């Protein structure tokens, strides 16, 4: 082995060791995640586009087509400059549905595994020449530097190391969409190396060979003019075709699709790359002509192998080493990413389609090992392609064979994004037609001589004609068959999900699985218990749903998420098969309606992208929605299938159930009493149900429900229910009815009182006559007592009449001194006349000096009522005590009994008229209300303690009355005439 060869091997292995070091540094966290997750790292990793073609092939291209070599860079730059309209929609679809490759995307959109399989096959065939270019440049660069023919063997060694790197850092996850931070950082590092090498080579050319820009310009105008004018000019049509091919390759080559969409962090990052990658490519392209011109200036004879002009422009070994490292960095990055991307595609669309995964205990591990085997196969396949075929063709022939092949997917991609009418028949036939032309015209001729294909443009290069004919056949078949053959329902819905401007009308279909546990159990049949449980939990976490979730809307989202996650694991075809089979929709007679909630969620998510009329309409939608949401009346909307679509804020407050937790739920699954209540409203022939009783938050409510049908020509169906809280109104109504009853009783009482008045007057007159007609002291006392009692009856009747007229006494406030002890005796005396409950003992302990200001008769009436109640409440041998005292400017006057006390529910309405606990006929319920009114007129108050403090039973009724002050009487008006009676 020559010294140069050994040095080159060591140099190459040293560089690859550095790459491993970079990977380990990221893996171990020696490099901050702030750096590894920076958008610049993503942009630099996209620099993998600049493969060995960019380092060597571009120089060869520049030598043969002048600035035509720029097509390679400008095509890719154009694709990324159009990122907002081209790449971002693809990113949205791939992220939403967890699609990791072009084959996944096509299989998802066109709902056929054939689409995925064909795209995978064409990718494998197209990528082989690209891999061949990487190995070929490595091999030939080694040969050129060392002057040996060992390049191919050394390239195999490097390929094995590269495959090991891909295995270690790129195949740890079974999910193809898992972001590989280490790998991206390593690829970004390689891009930096490539860029640094190219700029360094450009600098050597400009200042080392030409002594600066001025001398370069002089050379171009002098000696170099002859040489540059000898360079063939690229035909504009060829140039545009090349631009199109490289434009396509920039995002459709498997490795570029993988980095652009599967490894991407966000839309923002992609948009940043839309200008950053073109800048990177500009810097990569800038040194290419300088290197070529410098090599031309340096070379003594015409250069035969133009791709490696960098080795010629300077004899300094460092320049050669730099160019070699640049080529190795470009080749290794491409091979690593191609191997990872292609292995995933082959796994999902060939291996798993041929052998669907069964309920394996270690499904994840099985998938990982399959993928590792495929990675090694791809890398070794690239080397084999070079060894058998690639070495016999120049870089340009190999590159064009690869890029024209991948361009066959361009019509399908454009249809996927912008033409929902395209169907699988058109796609498959179009792809097959285009691929057939490409294989026959460009790819197979790499292996064996074939009869020339009939081509319509004689004299034009084969690659140009094959490109045009294959794409034309592809596009015509796609359009023709799509127009004239049927599109399935599944395809149509997938087309709506993928199309940029599609009207998405997701349907509400009922699922057979009714709970999350059902999901796990049904999926376990396909994936095994462990994997099924993990996938369901992963989907629940992603959607932030609880394991107890039962809402149909949430379960549909869970199904979609599981399908998307499985798609990331084993491709959309297999994922769809599993989900359709084990988590099927229920096909019954239930009406199928649009999933309005889902549509709204999507509109909210994509709101910032709406423009013009769509934005105006969305603004209007939000305004109407806000109006309904903030309505101070409860409102809910149901679809035709009784799934809840809206639950506004007022209803959330009334019910205590948040809208987020119930929207999407079936009506029957709402908490009681709502299902019954809403069912009765929706099934009622009347549009309004008035004051329906409902028990909410521990109290009774009265709700009025109004319903309306939402069916109509442009409507999506459903019913709306408006719910008003009429509890307060119901209470007021009850009060009004009660008051009306009282008023009628009052009128009755007034009439009765008036009628009683006449006989009482007669009795009083007769008693007075009796006094005049006899001197018998017994009869005289009887006549006095009759008169006293008739006066009392008269007062009671008068009080009753006054009560019915309400507050008439307030204006004639009594002012006389009244001794409480004395009127207590009076009241006891009168009470004894009734001669009932003799067994109850009454005692008057009032001191004689407690004098209040008031009306003695009315206060006796109060005391009589209190004593009567106390007596009635006492058991036989009960005891009733009257006591009094002063406190401050007030006197207290208390009646205490040891009776049964007052129940708490009665205490609240104790002073209401007609409130009585006595049996019918024994009490009117007016006594305490009259007492309350009288005490109130005396500017006093009544306290009730039942039982009194320090007692286990009984009641104490305490009256608080203002004390009488003789001094203040001077300022008061003259006392009422009858006050002096006592």
């Amino acid at each position: 082995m020559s010294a140069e060869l050994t040095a080159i091997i060591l140099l190459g292995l040293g560089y690859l060791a550095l790459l491993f070091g970079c990977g380990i540094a990221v893996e171990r966290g020696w490099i901050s995640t702030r750096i590894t997750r920076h958008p610049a790292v993503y942009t630099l990793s996209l620099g993998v586009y600049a493969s060995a073609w960019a380092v060597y092939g571009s120089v060869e291209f520049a030598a043969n087509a002048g600035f035509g070599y720029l097509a390679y860079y400008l095509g890719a730059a154009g694709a990324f400059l159009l990122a907002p309209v081209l790449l971002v929609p693809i990113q949205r679809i791939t992220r939403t549905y967890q699609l990791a490759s072009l084959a996944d995307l096509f299989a998802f959109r066109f709902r056929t595994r054939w689409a995925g399989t064909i795209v995978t096959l064409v990718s494998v065939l197209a990528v082989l020449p690209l891999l061949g270019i990487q190995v070929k440049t490595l091999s030939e660069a080694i040969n050129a530097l060392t002057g040996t023919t060992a390049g191919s063997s050394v390239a195999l060694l490097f390929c094995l190391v590269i495959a090991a790197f891909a295995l270690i850092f790129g195949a740890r996850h079974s999910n193809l969409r898992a972001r590989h931070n280490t790998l991206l950082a390593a690829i970004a590092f390689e891009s930096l190396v490539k860029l640094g090498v190219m700029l360094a080579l450009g600098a050597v050319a400009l200042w080392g060979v030409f002594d600066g820009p001025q001398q370069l310009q002089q050379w171009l105008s002098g000696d170099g003019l002859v040489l540059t004018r000898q360079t063939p000019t690229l035909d504009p049509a060829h140039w545009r075709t090349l631009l199109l091919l490289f434009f396509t390759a920039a995002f459709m080559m498997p490795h570029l699709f993988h980095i652009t969409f599967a490894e991407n962090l966000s839309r923002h990052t992609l948009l940043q790359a839309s200008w950053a990658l073109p800048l990177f490519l500009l810097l990569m392209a800038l040194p290419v002509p300088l290197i070529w011109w410098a090599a031309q200036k340096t070379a003594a004879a015409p250069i035969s192998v133009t791709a490696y002009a960098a080795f010629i422009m300077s004899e300094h070994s460092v320049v050669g080493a730099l160019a070699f490292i640049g080529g190795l960095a470009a080749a290794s990055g491409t091979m690593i990413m191609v191997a990872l991307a292609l292995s995933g595609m082959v796994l999902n669309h060939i291996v798993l389609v041929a052998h669907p995964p069964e309920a394996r205990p270690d499904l994840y591990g099985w998938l990982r090992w399959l993928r590792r085997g495929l990675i090694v196969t791809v890398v070794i396949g690239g080397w084999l392609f070079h060894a058998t075929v690639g070495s016999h063709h120049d870089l340009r022939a190999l590159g064009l064979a690869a890029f024209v092949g991948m361009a066959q997917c361009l019509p399908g991609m454009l249809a996927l994004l912008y033409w929902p009418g395209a169907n699988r028949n058109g796609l498959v036939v179009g792809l097959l037609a285009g691929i057939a032309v490409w294989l026959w015209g460009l790819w197979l001729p790499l292996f064996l001589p074939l009869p020339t294909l009939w081509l319509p443009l004689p004299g034009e290069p084969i690659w140009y004609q094959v490109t045009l004919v294959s794409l034309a056949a592809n596009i015509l078949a796609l359009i023709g068959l799509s127009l004239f053959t049927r599109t399935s329902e599944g395809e149509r819905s997938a087309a709506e999900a993928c199309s940029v401007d599609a009207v998405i009308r997701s349907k509400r279909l009922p699922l057979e699985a009714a709970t999350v546990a059902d999901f796990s159990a049904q999926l376990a049949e396909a994936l095994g218990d462990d994997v099924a449980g993990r996938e369901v939990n992963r989907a629940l976490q992603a959607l932030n749903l609880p394991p107890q979730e039962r809402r149909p809307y949430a379960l549909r989202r869970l199904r979609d998420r599981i399908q998307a996650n499985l798609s990331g694991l084993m491709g959309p075809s297999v994922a769809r098969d599993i989900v359709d089979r084990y988590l099927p929709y229920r096909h019954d007679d239930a009406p199928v309606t649009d999933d309005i909630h889902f549509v709204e969620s999507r509109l909210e998510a994509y709101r910032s992208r709406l423009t013009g009329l769509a934005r105006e309409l969305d603004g209007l939608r939000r305004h109407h929605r806000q109006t309904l949401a903030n309505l101070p009346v409860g409102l809910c909307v149901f679809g035709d299938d009784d799934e809840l679509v809206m639950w506004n804020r007022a209803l959330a407050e009334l019910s205590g159930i948040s809208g987020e937790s119930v929207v999407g739920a079936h009506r029957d699954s709402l908490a009681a009493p709502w299902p019954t209540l809403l069912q009765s409203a929706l099934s009622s022939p009347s549009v309004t149900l008035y004051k329906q009783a409902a028990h909410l938050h521990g109290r009774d409510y009265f709700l009025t429900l109004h319903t309306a049908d939402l069916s109509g020509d442009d409507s999506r169906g459903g019913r709306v229910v408006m719910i008003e809280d009429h509890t307060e109104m119901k209470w007021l109504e009850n009060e009004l009815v009660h008051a009306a009853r009282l008023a009628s009783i009052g009128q009755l009482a007034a009439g009765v009182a008036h009628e009683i008045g006449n006989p009482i007057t007669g009795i009083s007159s007769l008693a007075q006559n009796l006094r005049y007609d006899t001197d018998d002291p017994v009869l005289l006392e009887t006549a006095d007592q009759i008169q006293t009692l008739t006066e009392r009856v008269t007062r009671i009747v008068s009080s009753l009449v006054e009560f019915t007229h309400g507050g008439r006494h307030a204006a004639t406030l009594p002012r006389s001194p009244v001794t409480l002890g004395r009127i207590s005796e009076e009241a006891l005396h009168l009470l004894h006349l009734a001669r009932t409950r003799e067994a109850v003992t009454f005692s008057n302990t009032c001191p004689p000096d407690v004098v209040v200001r008031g009306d003695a008769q009315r206060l006796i009436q109060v005391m009589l009522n209190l004593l009567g109640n106390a007596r009635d409440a006492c058991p036989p041998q009960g005891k009733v005590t009257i006591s009094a005292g002063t406190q401050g400017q007030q006197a207290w006057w208390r009646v205490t009994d040891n009776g049964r006390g007052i129940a708490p529910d009665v205490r609240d309405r104790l002073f209401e008229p007609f409130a009585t606990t006595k049996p019918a006929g024994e009490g009117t319920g007016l006594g305490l209300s009259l007492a309350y009114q009288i005490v109130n007129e005396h500017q006093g108050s009544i306290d009730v303690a039942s039982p009194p403090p320090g007692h286990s039973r009984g009641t104490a009724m305490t009256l608080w009355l203002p004390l009488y002050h003789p001094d203040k009487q001077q300022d008061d008006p003259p006392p009422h005439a009858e006050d002096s009676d006592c």
Partner: protein
Amino acid sequence: MYVYRIMLFLVFGGYLLSPFLMSGWGNPEIAWYRPFLIWGGLIALSVWLEQKRKLDER
């Protein structure tokens, strides 16, 4: 979205007119770096439009 339409127009316009870029090769009257200047200008425009888009979406 209007910003994107500008970019769409520029890229497709550039695609149609791009063959003129090649005329600088072997022509001493045209600076060899002219294609790169035009390309750099397009990138600067793209950066400016991206900033404008960010402001629009706020």
